[in-house]
């Protein structure tokens, strides 16, 4: 992984590619690498769909190794949704295969002069780029089937659906999973639209003949990997809760805590929560012959995902995760897991972000386009997006655009990106992260809770008034660091509670690369990545006024606890005062 593959899609001449050494970007992976390349090479004020924007696909530092949990991939660009820098993260098989082919990143640059659609194959033999008009307006599932017919079943695909081709701001980049299904997505911020603007429909990765990357110190790497896996297995979140129920284990409890955004963030509890909970979901999957415990890529030992079968016992989609179940479920008043699974399948096929489109349908329901709770109406609205009707294009442009078009005030977005499944009035620290994240409203930006272990920014007094601000900042740094390793963020729970598991992670990176990183170096990396991203956004025109939640969160009390968002603007402005 010491080279970068640059694919220039035009406009001068036919698409071409070059391979170059990683150079100045050495030591970076995942989000660290995508953000560094975007910040250095993309003018912050450029149009996100213009030729100056780039789409960077980067495995983590341990991509393509035998390291557990190391197969996540980062997709970076200037976002057409937020107008700021973007890193969207996904599971799936391509990261491992790109790593084994020796690439630290694939960078799509330029833009074709003509309206052509391309497929790209990357293998040990090199790179082939060919126009394929047959793929036009095909869904991700169809595209992958065609690629399998053409290139065999050892491949992995990175593709866009109709939404990406239409350059809609909620569009995703799909990554195939272990079963070669395009069910894993770099979903947030409209990254699919940027791939669509480059005229690239699919990148086929074929690592036949490539070998596993080998560590500098194999024995030490093996021992550290073992200790890391043991740590994950013995922790109650990563060893029990997530494998048994997936992230949807949160539905019941967030709902009970009154923080489950319901009916487009009108109230904090949903009567139908138990019916769509992870516990119920797991039982349905078992009864129908699906799989409630499954990894999104080979090498995952937590396995928070699963396989959802329809009522007839046939595969429909992967197990919809917590945010998806919420976005299409409680947020729209829908309490039927079969409807939610169908919406997830359509989202994956068209290539749309489940959070963004779920929030958008919530706004559309508030506007009277459908009744809250009407599952068939929700399915029909998503189908409008796939068909590319004028209404579908509005919905596919996200919650903020839809709110404007239909004159709705209650639109749950920050920097135009829809909020995920935790009401910031009930989890105020989450609200701080939504407001100040470089990515727009994003739960994963502060998902990692490793602050005290990583020691970023000193120790935190949770009872101090500034506690939420300080914690949110530290968590955002820690998350940026983990995203840069290419590890799944869910390792954070074990790392938080078990210092030896955190050490094992650092030992793995050191043994593999022959480095001597310390915990301080890792946290410094998280801080550096955050600074790069904030600088980019500032140059793109963002100010502290963009680090705010919509006003109604301060004014409308959320039932059942009747809380409003109480963190002041002045406090929000201090979150990144140290950068």
């Amino acid at each position, binding site marked *: 992984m010491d080279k970068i593959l640059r694919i220039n899609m035009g406009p001068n001449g036919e698409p071409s590619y070059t391979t170059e050494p990683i150079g100045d970007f050495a030591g970076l992976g995942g989000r660290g690498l995508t953000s560094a390349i975007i910040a250095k090479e993309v003018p912050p004020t450029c149009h996100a769909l213009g030729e100056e924007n780039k789409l960077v696909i980067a495995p983590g530092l341990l991509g393509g190794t035998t390291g557990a949990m190391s197969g996540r991939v980062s997709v970076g660009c200037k976002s057409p949704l937020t107008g700021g820098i973007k890193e969207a993260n996904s599971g799936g098989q391509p990261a491992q295969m790109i790593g084994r082919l020796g690439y630290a990143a694939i960078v799509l640059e330029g833009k074709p002069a003509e309206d052509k659609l391309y497929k790209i194959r990357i293998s040990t033999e090199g790179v082939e780029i060919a126009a394929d008009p047959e793929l036009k307006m095909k869904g991700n599932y169809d595209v992958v089937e065609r690629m399998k017919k053409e290139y065999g079943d050892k491949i992995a695909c990175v593709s866009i659906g109709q939404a990406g081709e239409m350059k809609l701001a909620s569009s995703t980049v799909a990554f195939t999973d272990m079963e070669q299904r395009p069910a894993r997505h770099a979903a947030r911020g409209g990254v699919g639209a940027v791939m669509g603007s480059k005229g690239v429909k699919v990148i086929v990765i074929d690592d036949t003949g490539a070998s596993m990357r080998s560590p500098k110190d194999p024995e030490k790497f093996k021992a550290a990997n073992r200790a890391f896996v043991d740590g994950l297995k013995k*922790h*109650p*979140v990563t060893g*029990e*809760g*997530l494998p*048994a*129920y997936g*992230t949807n*284990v*949160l539905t*019941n*409890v*967030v*709902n*009970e*805590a*009154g*923080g489950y955004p319901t009916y487009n963030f009108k109230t904090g*509890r949903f009567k139908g*929560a*138990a*019916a769509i*909970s*992870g*516990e*119920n979901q*797991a*039982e*349905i999957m*078992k*009864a129908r012959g699906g799989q409630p415990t499954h990894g999104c890529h080979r090498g995952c030992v937590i396995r*928070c995902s699963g396989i959802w079968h329809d009522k007839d016992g046939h595969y429909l989609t992967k197990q919809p995760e917590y945010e998806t179940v919420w976005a299409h479920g409680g947020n729209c008043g829908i309490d039927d897991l079969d409807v939610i699974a169908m919406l997830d399948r359509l989202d994956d096929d068209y290539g749309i972000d489940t959070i963004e489109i779920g929030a958008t349908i919530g706004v559309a329901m508030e506007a009277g386009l459908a009744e809250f709770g009407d599952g068939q109406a929700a399915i029909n609205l998503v189908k409008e997006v796939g068909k590319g009707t004028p209404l579908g294009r509005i919905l596919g442009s996200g919650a903020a655009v839809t709110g404007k078009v239909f004159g709705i005030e209650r639109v749950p977005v920050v920097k135009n990106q829809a909020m995920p499944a*935790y009401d910031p*009035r*009930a*989890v*105020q*620290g*989450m609200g701080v*992260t939504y407001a100040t994240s470089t990515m727009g409203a994003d*739960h994963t930006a*502060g*998902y990692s*809770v490793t602050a*005290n272990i990583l020691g970023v920014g000193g120790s*935190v007094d*949770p*009872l101090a*008034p500034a*506690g*939420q601000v*300080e*914690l*949110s900042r530290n968590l955002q740094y820690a998350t940026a660091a983990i995203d840069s390793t290419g590890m799944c963020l*869910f390792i954070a*729970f074990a790392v938080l509670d078990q210092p030896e598991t955190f050490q094992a992670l650092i030992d793995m990176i050191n043994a593999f690369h022959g480095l001597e990183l310390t915990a301080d170096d890792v946290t410094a990396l998280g801080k550096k990545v955050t600074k790069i991203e904030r600088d980019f956004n500032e140059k793109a025109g963002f100010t502290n006024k963009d680090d705010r939640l919509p006003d109604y969160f301060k004014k409308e009390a959320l039932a*059942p*606890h009747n809380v409003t968002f*109480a963190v002041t603007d002045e406090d929000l402005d201090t979150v990144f005062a140290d950068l």
Partner: protein
Amino acid sequence: METTAEINRVDIEMAPGSTGIFSMLSGYGFFIEAPAGISVNALLQKKLGLDAGYIEKHIQTILHDGKPVDDIDGWKIKEDSTIALSAALPGLFGAAFRRGGKFAALRPREMPAESGRHPENDAITITVKLFNLSARELGPQLLQNGIQMSAETFLSLWKNILKLDRGKSLNVLLNGNKIDPHTLAESIRPVNVLLSVLTH
């Protein structure tokens, strides 16, 4: 609590190994009677039969009327309130609502739970909700002894159980008489249900 005359008694017999119902109990509240002024810890140990070690290790989040409880000994439970128990949870939410309050600052500032005032009567009724692993682990014993829940809650739980098509493999008795699982819902009268589940 209702008198026996207002209770529908539902007994379910199911094949060994079908543990699904216990998991599906997650999120559906059932009633427990307890002495007024009982602490959260005493409720868990004396009424739900959990030992201190289990509570420490496995009950990581406790919500009292939706508000997180940290001090399980000092915390007194109010009449007609709801106690919810969960195993360890992922994410920022899991960290913020975890017992012990290490990340409590992430909760809303004005959200500390109100401790219960002692009511005048001697016994109070509390709704208990078990979530995730706690439902799977504690459900079998509780359901074997029988739990009482509102008819409304039971009917929505029953709808989910039937959705799995488990009706075929379940032997169901209503007030001691065998009944077709698919007609059970129509025969449930308002107020409460005493539900017990036995595996053979």
